[in-house]
């Protein structure tokens, strides 16, 4: 009987996956190509997928970071930017740009758009799927480019690479800092929480549910369930029949989510440095609160936005300073997993 129930569950997830794929295909016309340079994608290229909205201040460093890692192609959806992001991106020789003015929220927080682009272009490529404020790092990232990692993962027979979000913050109130657009945000956001993360295995999707970090302790201490999910699976050798389920927290089919070791060993993992808390986050929070495009039930997050608008100071004497990947690894936030 339990076996039957399992089969039924598996079938329901299969239906769900196919529904999400169909939905993305049906909605592909909501995207208008601004600059389509996908013709030159080579077989071994590493692709990056992102949806952005008004990220002009970050984009320059974002592109530089991923180019330095060895990402060859950027496939970006611009959701109605008004700050010049679109022109900036359209001029880049390695960026293919689409635009849409549809609702982010009603398109699964941009996933419908990205899913379509991934069906169309990502098959069998290593793909990075991130937001503009997420910078991927991994052990040895300072000396080995991303293709070194993906080649190694290929040899290990691993198609999925987890990298949880590590939220960075400045010392002092967020808005009291000064950030020049184009600068490396991690030069300003130098601090992080090293060991206050809660991990739970979600039996339904088999993904880990990681929560914690500065936002959980500052804004969600009274309702930890609503604290942001930090699980991320941003680097995948993609298959066109796969689909991200919610944000890049989990994937269907479900077995892909089990990229953590369950026998006591240590699988490889990286980190997504989350550079959300630049000074402009305060103004952005006011706008986001108004737009009500937050994941889940937006009303629940009003007090969170209010706290952000108040320019909080996340720093504590227990905060760790960002010094390099070796420190992050020895703290147990990520792991080489045998990649020497």
């Amino acid at each position: 009987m339990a076996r039957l129930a399992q089969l039924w569950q598996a079938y329901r997830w299969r239906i769900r996956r196919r529904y999400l794929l169909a939905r993305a295909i049906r909605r592909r016309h909501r995207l208008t190509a601004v600059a389509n340079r996908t013709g030159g994608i080579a077989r071994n290229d590493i692709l990056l997928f992102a949806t952005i909205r008004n990220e002009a201040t970050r984009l320059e460093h974002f592109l530089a970071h991923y180019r330095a890692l060895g990402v060859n192609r950027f496939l970006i959806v611009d959701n109605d930017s008004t700050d010049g992001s679109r022109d900036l991106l359209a001029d880049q020789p390695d960026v293919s740009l689409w635009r849409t003015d549809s609702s982010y929220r009603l398109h699964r927080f941009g996933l419908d758009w990205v899913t379509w682009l991934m069906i169309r272009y990502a098959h069998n490529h290593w793909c990075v799927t991130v937001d503009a404020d997420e910078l991927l790092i991994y052990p040895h990232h300072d000396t080995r480019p991303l293709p070194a990692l993906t080649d190694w993962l290929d040899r290990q027979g691993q198609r999925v690479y987890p990298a949880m979000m590590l939220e960075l913050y400045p010392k002092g109130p967020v808005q009291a800092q000064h950030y020049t657009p184009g600068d490396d945000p991690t030069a300003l956001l130098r601090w992080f929480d090293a060991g206050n993360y809660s991990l739970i295995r979600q039996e339904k999707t088999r993904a880990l549910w990681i929560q914690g970090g500065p936002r959980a302790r500052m804004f969600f201490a009274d309702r930890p369930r609503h604290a942001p999910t930090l699980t991320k699976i941003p680097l995948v050798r993609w298959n066109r029949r796969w689909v991200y389920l919610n944000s890049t927290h989990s994937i269907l089919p479900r077995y892909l989510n089990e990229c953590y070791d369950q026998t006591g060993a240590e699988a490889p993992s990286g980190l997504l440095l989350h550079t959300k808390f630049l000074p402009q986050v305060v103004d952005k929070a006011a706008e986001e609160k108004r737009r009500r495009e937050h994941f889940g039930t937006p009303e629940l997050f009003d007090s969170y936005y209010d706290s952000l608008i108040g320019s909080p100071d996340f720093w504590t004497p227990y905060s760790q300073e960002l010094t390099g990947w070796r420190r992050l690894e020895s703290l147990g936030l990520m792991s080489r997993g045998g990649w020497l």
Partner: protein
Amino acid sequence: MTVGFIMMCHTAFDRAAQVARYWGAHGAPVVIHVDARVSRHDYMALGRQLADLDNVSFSKRFKCEWGTWSLVAAAQAGAEQMLRQHPDVNHVFLASGSCLPLRPVAELNDYLAAHPQTDFIESVTTAEVGWTVGGIDMERFTLRFPFSWKKRRRLFDKYVALQRRLGVKRRIPGGIVPHLGSQWWCLSRATLSAILQDPDRATYDRYFSRVWIPDESYFQSLARLHSTQIESRSLTLSKFDYQGKPHIFYDDHLQLLRRSDCFVARKIWPKADKLYTNFLAERPAESVAEPNPSKIDRLFSKAVERRTKGRPGLYMQSRFPRQDHENGKTSAHYSIFQGFSDLFENFEGWLAKYVGARVHGHLFGPARAEFAGGAAMFNGCMSDSATLRDYNPRGFLTNLIWNGRGERQCFMFSPRDTQDINWFTATDPNAQISVISGAWAVPLFHSNRDFADIRREAARLQQIEIDHLNILRSMYVKARVRIWNMADFIENPMEPLQTIIDEISPRATRRLTEAPQMVDLTGFGQFLQNLRNQGMQPRLMGDFPVHGDLLTQPPRRGRPYLVK
């Protein structure tokens, strides 16, 4: 006299060409075998790249598949060609396209000239190798393997199982003692030609062509027949990961590779530009160092261990062990004290004085996590919020121990606290749990609450403590558990305290001089009687006389009740 190289190539031809050119230009003949599955276009391109070197040639091509005879056949063909075309070659070195010379050819020539008759080939009897993956060692030589391990794994496994069941065994040709070893060898002309010109070669070849992974055993076994002097080690530095796949070297391994003093290393990541430019640069031959891969062994064995065992007590995004597979539920020893803070005034302060540890208050207290020193936060930015803690109590505990590693963590516990961690701590060998049962009643005794309330609360706490004690007395306990009832404990508190403290810091030989200050218990016996009179039966405190003070009675030697 010089060394000659056979290179087995199937990919990254630019790098292979670079290395072949380096060897060829330094006077070492090179015979290149290119996998027959490589396209004609790539093959021709490689040929054109090396056309100007007359000591670089190409051998007959075989379709090479991992673990099959084709690799040996290719090596044989290459070796025959090498011996035939280059009479000045005294040693033949088998290398792959992803090998990189770490030392100048002249240094290798000098080294081999000093050992003219020696064969450098790792060759170990099957009984002694510890590195076979898949559990098949001697059976490699006695079973048949018609199915590909890489492509037809299930058939492969099934057929092996069937043969084991039927007990079929192949006969090993006379004179051969199976030996295994790294497929990257360096053999002397004498030995190699003896192997290739052996009158029984046809028999051996037929036998080995059906052995599993013959490239790790053909030359390794036959060299034992013909060699006069075997040095059972490979001159090629090659390290393996936990799956038995070779480690790949990157630019940042430059110093590591230098330090090894090996002549050749594999595998090199084809895009490791710095390694290729550095090691293929012109350098004078000056070092006479013996190759010494053991200098860097530790690093690799640690990497394998990290992958297969992980860091005990760490729960993170790529290590989330199932229950009972934790390989260390927590990362360090810690101590839990139940009842002590109720019975003694400022027990935390007293304990901190006697043990070099971080002594927290009630970490799982109902109002907040009472970190040591009343701090609102702990290492790793752990918050003292009770809601956050109770959202994932086990995670809170493992985080605390992990974040406090390097320093022993001690904390107070009581039935008033969150109880969700009880099974976890009881089954954790790192935990030291000391319980004075019934001590939770002391704060009630001192409180001014309505007696009906007190009775209700006492009944609740007693039930919680009974449940906890049942866990601590179960057969699954792995923690170091000590339980006293309150009456026994206060009769003679020094001895149990000394035992606990000795266990926490075994090297401190200091005797306890001063007992912690006990709270005033005058009238406690009457209090318990009042509870009884109200219909609640206090069961965990031991025997307290209703009248008079327990402590005035002559002390009896109390023995701690030790579970495991």
